[in-house]
C-alpha cells in the first residue's frame, strides 16, 4: 500500500547536466515518495532520458545531487557511493525497464536464467529454489511457466517486456526506472502490459520514475507528472491536474495534440 506520508525515497536537488553548450537538463528538483509513480513527459530531446540517467546514477550531474534513502533508513548522496555500492543498489533495490528489451534482458539466456540472475547475484546458490521463484514470477507476469527454458529471442515483444519486469522485481526493489516501457508495442499488447504494471506497482508499493512521451501512459500509471522542455521542468503537479488543466503554453500544446488522452 502506498505510503505518501513517509519521508521521501529519492530527492533530486538542482540537477543539471550540460553537453558542451547544449543543456541536457537544468536545475531539476523534486522528491519522490515511497510508492509514488512519477511520470516525466516531453518530446524527444527534452531531457527526459538525461534526467533518468542522472537519477539512476548512470550519469554524473554537473551540478546538484540525488539523495536516496537506503534500505537501512540512511539517506545517501548517490555520488558518494562507491561503484560497487551503486551497482549493488541497482541490482537489488532498483529495477530498470528499458524500451528495448534487448537492453534489459540477456537474449542468449533462458527466461528462468534471466529471472534468476539477480538472485544468484546476491548469493542464492540453490537451483531448485531459484527455479521455483522464477516460475512464480513468470506466472505473476502472465507468461506460461512451460516457457521457462525458452530464450527471449523466442518471445513476442509484449512477453519480453513482461519478462524484463519479472527479472527486475525478483529482488523486491523499492524503486523502478522505466523508459518508455510500452513504446513500440501494439495497442492491445500495450493495454495489457500497462494493466500488469499498474497492478504490480499497487500490490508491491513500488515507487516508479517513468519516462514517456505518451500522455495516456502517464495518465494511467502515474500520480504526478513533470513536463520537460529543452532540459527544463516547465510544469509539475498531480497527473490529472496537469493533463486536464494544463497551465503552461507548451503543456497545453502537448495535451491538445493528443487524441483523447
Amino acid at each position, binding site marked *: 500500500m502506498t505510503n505518501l506520508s513517509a519521508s521521501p525515497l529519492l530527492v533530486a536537488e538542482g540537477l543539471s547536466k550540460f553537453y558542451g553548450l547544449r543543456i541536457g537538463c537544468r536545475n531539476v528538483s523534486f522528491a519522490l515518495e515511497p510508492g509514488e509513480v512519477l511520470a516525466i513527459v516531453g518530446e524527444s530531446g527534452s531531457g527526459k532520458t538525461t534526467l533518468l540517467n542522472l537519477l539512476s546514477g548512470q550519469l554524473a550531474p554537473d551540478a546538484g545531487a540525488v539523495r536516496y534513502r537506503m534500505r537501512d533508513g540512511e539517506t545517501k548522496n548517490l555520488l558518494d557511493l562507491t561503484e560497487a555500492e551503486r*551497482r549493488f543498489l541497482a541490482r537489488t533495490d532498483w529495477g530498470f525497464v528499458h524500451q528495448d528489451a534487448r537492453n534489459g534482458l540477456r537474449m542468449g*539466456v533462458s527466461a528462468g*536464467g534471466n529471472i534468476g*540472475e*539477480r538472485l544468484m*547475484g546476491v548469493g542464492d*546458490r*540453490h537451483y531448485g529454489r531459484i527455479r521455483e521463484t522464477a516460475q512464480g514470477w513468470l506466472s505473476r507476469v502472465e507468461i506460461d511457466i512451460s516457457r521457462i*527454458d525458452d530464450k527471449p529471442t523466442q518471445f513476442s515483444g509484449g512477453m519480453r517486456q513482461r519478462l524484463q519486469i519479472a527479472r527486475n522485481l525478483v529482488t523486491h526493489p523499492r524503486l523502478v526506472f522505466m523508459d518508455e516501457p510500452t513504446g513500440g508495442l501494439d495497442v492491445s499488447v500495450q493495454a495489457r502490459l500497462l494493466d500488469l504494471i499498474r497492478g504490480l506497482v499497487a500490490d508491491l508499493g513500488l515507487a516508479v520514475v517513468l519516462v514517456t512521451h505518451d500522455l495516456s501512459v502517464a495518465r494511467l500509471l502515474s500520480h504526478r507528472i513533470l513536463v520537460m522542455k529543452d532540459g527544463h521542468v516547465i510544469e509539475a503537479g498531480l497527473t490529472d491536474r496537469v493533463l486536464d488543466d494544463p497551465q503552461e503554453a507548451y503543456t497545453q500544446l502537448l495535451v491538445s495534440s493528443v487524441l483523447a488522452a
Partner: protein
Amino acid sequence: MSRTAENYRGYNFAYLDEQTKRMIRRAILKAIAIPGYQVPFASREMPMPYGWGTGGVQVTAAILGPTDVLKVIDQGADDTTNAVSIRQFFEKTAGVETTTETEKATVIQTRHRIPEAKLQAHQVLVYQVPIPEPLRFLEPRETETRTLHALAEYGLMHVRLYEDIAQHGHIAKTYAYPVLVADRYVMDPSPIPKFDNPKMHESAALQLFGAGREKRIYAIPPHTKVVSLDFEDHPFEATKFDQPCALCGATDSYLDEVITDDRGGRMFVCSDTHHCETRRAEGHVGTLGTPVTEAAE
C-alpha cells in the same frame, strides 16, 4: 647450459631476451600476489602459431633456469606433436634437461591436463590457456567483465551453470569448469577436464597460467583454496569412469577413448601416458594390456 653456449650461439637462454623475461616475471609475481586475477602482459610473437601454447611457452621461458628439468604434456601425453615440439624448442634454446617423468620434472608445461601424480612443492605447473576470461561467453565486453571481476559480481557465472542444469538436468560442463580462487576471483582453469579440478585445490606446486593471444597471465600460489562453482542442490562432481584403464587397470585416473579399428572397436586408457607406463612397469595390467616384461621381449 653448456650445450646452449656451445651449440646454439645466437639464441639468448630460453629464446626470449632478458628484458622480456623480466617483464613476464613481473606479471607472474603480480599474478601470484593476487591469486586468480588476470594480469595483462606484453605477449611476444613466438616461433609457433597462436593456439599452440605461446602463452605457456613464454611463462616457461621466463621462469626456466639452467638446472631445471622440463616436462611438457599435451592432453596428458608426452609424445604428441605439440609436446614434442615444445620440449625440443627448450632443449635447443635453453639446453635444459627434459624428462617425461612427472616426479623428476621441476617445470611442467601442460595443455589440457594436470598429471595424475601429486605435484610437489619444488614443482611449477605451467598451463597453456586459450581463453582466460570465464565470463566471456555471457558478457562479451571486456570493460564490463573487468568491472565484474573488480566488484566480485559473479552472479552471471552461476547463470551459466543454471542454464546447464535447466537444459541437461545437471551441470554439463566437463572441461574449463570455473573455479573460485582464494574466495575472491573466479577463474577459468584452461580447458582441463573437471576431473582435474580438485587437484588445483591446496596444491603444493605453484600453478601458472599463460594466454599468449589474449596477453594474460594468472596464477594459483601453492596451498591456495580453489573451489569449483556449483549449487547446493547440484554440487560439483568430478567425472567418474565406469571402467578401469584398459592398459594398466587404473581406476582413479582420467581416461581417453582410443579407437582401435574401423569396426567400432575402442578402448579407454589413461590420458597421462607417464602415469600409465609407471603403473605397468610396476606390474599392473589392464584387460587389453600385456605385461611390460613380455612386451619388451
